[in-house]
């Protein structure tokens, strides 16, 4: 165990490239928009010291496949990608170095519902396969239910209620949680 606040900047930077990942709601914050998709994925590998271009490119192509992006988009810049593809590329860029802990800030936030479902399924499968620990922020209770085991309900900077996700959502105890859960419109 290490105290994060006591780490040097170099150590924190190393953590961000290795054991940690961060998926932003706004993909342009998590990607280099003017670097190819392959470059975006390969950057973390190079940061870890891999210098073998062919191997990096091969790994990047494999990851593009895992997040369901066509192989022929490897050399295209993310600025030419749709919102859903950018989000999947951001996930590939984060997971390529097999982090142990990934933070996700509204990963399906700005997306059309038509791409949300596939992305949720993809995230869920990757979490299960890689044994990832994820801390996710979302306003969408359905997303919380589908992706998380545990939930912490927050209001004004304080945790109001926490526990097993389906229990908190189906049997909420705190007044604020009840308000949230019982206010959701069924589609």
């Amino acid at each position, binding site marked *: 165990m290490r105290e994060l606040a006591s780490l040097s900047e170099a150590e924190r930077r190393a953590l961000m490239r290795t054991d940690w990942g961060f998926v932003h709601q706004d993909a342009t914050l998590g990607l280099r928009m003017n670097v190819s998709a392959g470059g975006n994925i390969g950057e973390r590998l190079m940061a870890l010291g891999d210098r073998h271009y062919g191997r990096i490119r091969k790994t990047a192509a494999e990851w593009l496949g895992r997040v369901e992006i066509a192989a022929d988009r490897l050399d295209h810049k993310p600025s030419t990608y749709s919102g859903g593809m950018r989000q999947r590329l951001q996930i590939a860029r984060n997971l390529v170095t097999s982090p142990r802990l990934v933070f996700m800030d509204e990963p399906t936030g700005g997306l059309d519902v038509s791409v949300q479902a*596939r992305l949720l*399924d993809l995230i869920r499968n990757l979490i299960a396969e890689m044994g990832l620990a994820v801390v996710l922020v979302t306003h969408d209770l359905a997303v919380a239910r589908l992706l998380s085991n*545990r939930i912490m309900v927050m209001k004004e900077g304080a945790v109001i209620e926490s526990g*097993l996700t389906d229990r908190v959502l189906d049997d909420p*105890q705190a007044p604020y949680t009840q*308000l949230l859960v019982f206010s959701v419109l069924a589609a």
Partner: protein
Amino acid sequence: MMPAAADLLIVEGLEKSFTLHLHGGARLPVVAGVAFAVERGECVVLGGPSGAGKSSILKMAYGNYRADRGRILLADGGRFLDIAQASPGEIVDARRRIMGYVSQFLRVIPRVSALDIVAAAARGAGLEVEAARARAAALLARLNLPNHLWALPPATFSGGEQQRVNIARGFAGEHDLLILDEPTASLDAVNRDAVVALIAERRALGAGFLSIFHDEDVRERLADRVIDVLPFSAQAAA
């Protein structure tokens, strides 16, 4: 009560009420003093009228509802886990390894195929990808889900077809304990028979069942014991 080797689930002094904060803190008592046990290889059915608290008892046993008081002891190898006190992690783990649940309605990620939904449940219980798919396929075949539906997401399926996907998912983990909330409600006679046969087969292999069946015929054929929940019900006390 001292747990015996055959005990799979022991419920003692279980109590539950809802407090509705959006309605002036109104308190809605559901059940109190619930006590019963389920042994390995036994099918226990909860009986009683609608609103008596049958589903709430099932949900507490699965960890889905909070228990206000009492114990829910689930056998895990040589020890017992108290679901009423267990941490979220312990409940998640128990659901993977020991207990499954079939609800009245299927709730899944949209656009995922029926086969993948069932296979994911088998994967969760520890099977490798291919073995999980094989078990999922066997279950869907067994429950007469037409082959051409397997690769499709269940959203457009009929109620009975969705329910069979739901049952297949619940059985895919081959858990010690299965909690069934009216699994046969929307099924026709042929498919009801298929479900009854599946339950009977698992029971013969030692699985225990805690269930609600409104269908008299199904109850006749499967129930080793019917527990009337009315004596535990707040509705009866009111």
